[in-house]
């Protein structure tokens, strides 16, 4: 995937979205970023050469304007789980986007969307696992027993 140029939609231009969009644009992909807040686009790096679409991603017309129908990859990274899940659902079912990724904070919701064929990334689980690994390195186990 790294060698070919892709058309990528990044929904949500917060810390994660802006970083991803900047990196992907820098990597030579053509990127469109969507956010409700026009000021959010300030977080994009200076090298970002993609488009910016201001609007609510829960509105179908906004996703059409961002050309979701042409996207090779959609990354849903807004701060709201339900928006990300809906965007993923629309990308998958309506626009038949081949690759869809969604950030989901609540691990309980992650399960449901795995059925949909949407790859989810849950920062809560990742952080928890990483922290537990660190604890284990330091000689503490999650099982409650201490290995001193």
């Amino acid at each position, binding site marked *: 995937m790294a060698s070919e140029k892709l058309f990528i939609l990044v929904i949500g231009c917060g810390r994660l979205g802006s970083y991803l969009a900047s990196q992907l644009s820098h990597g030579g992909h053509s990127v469109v970023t969507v956010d409700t807040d026009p000021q959010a686009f300030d977080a994009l790096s200076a090298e970002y050469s993609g488009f910016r679409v201001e609007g609510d991603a*829960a*509105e*179908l*017309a906004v996703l059409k304007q961002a050309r979701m129908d042409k996207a090779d990859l959609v990354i849903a990274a807004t701060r*709201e*789980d*339900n*928006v990300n*899940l*809906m965007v993923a*659902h*629309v990308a998958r*079912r*309506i626009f038949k986007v081949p690759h869809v990724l969604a950030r989901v904070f*609540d691990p*309980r*919701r992650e399960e*449901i969307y795995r*059925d949909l064929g949407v790859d989810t990334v849950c920062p809560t689980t990742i952080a928890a696992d990483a922290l537990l690994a660190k604890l284990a390195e330091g000689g503490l186990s999650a099982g409650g027993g201490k290995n001193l």
Partner: protein
Amino acid sequence: MKVIVVGGAKIVYFLCRTYISKGHSVVLVNRDLEECTQLARRLKATVVHGDGSDPQILAEAGVESADALLAVTPNDQDNLVICEVAARRFHVPRTLALVNDPDNEQVFKELSNTIAFSTTHILANLIEQRADFEEITNLLPVGEGKINVTEVALTEDAPVVGKSLIDISLPENALIAGILRGGHAIIPRGSTVLHAGDQLILMTLPADHGQVLKLLLGESAQ
């Protein structure tokens, strides 16, 4: 029937009140604690405080034994996830969702077992039908709009007033199926004479609709 309603504001209050008065058992889920307290005070319903798209909150609301779930929050994304969780995870037999953006109706159609309704769509249609032309009310489209059933009120200056049906040359694809006159219903025959003030129940094919209206009401009907 046990119904779970997720959402807030007046619509939820009045919906629940209607369901309760019909003898259904209602569980309400709302994110706002203050609103929950108020609703619990005013309604004979169980009120659960929490995010309705969280499976755990739905489980607390007793979603497993629910016959139907209604998602009427002002956010389409929330309504979508609520119905998705209820249908997929808890196998609620009937889920209904309010769709705020009418374009999203097609998105909700992809959901298993969910009926989506867009108030924007319904209101826009109602207003169009009513405001368009005072004398004409579209009663219902039959067969996905392939047949129009329309109610037409005859004004005094309508060209067909005083004529019998046999003398009016309606196009082939049109039928006056009934007449409401002074509170009575008449099934018309060829000899029936039309009066001013008659309400005609008209069945037409959409292609001939405009032509038939013009014939009955004169040039003013556009």
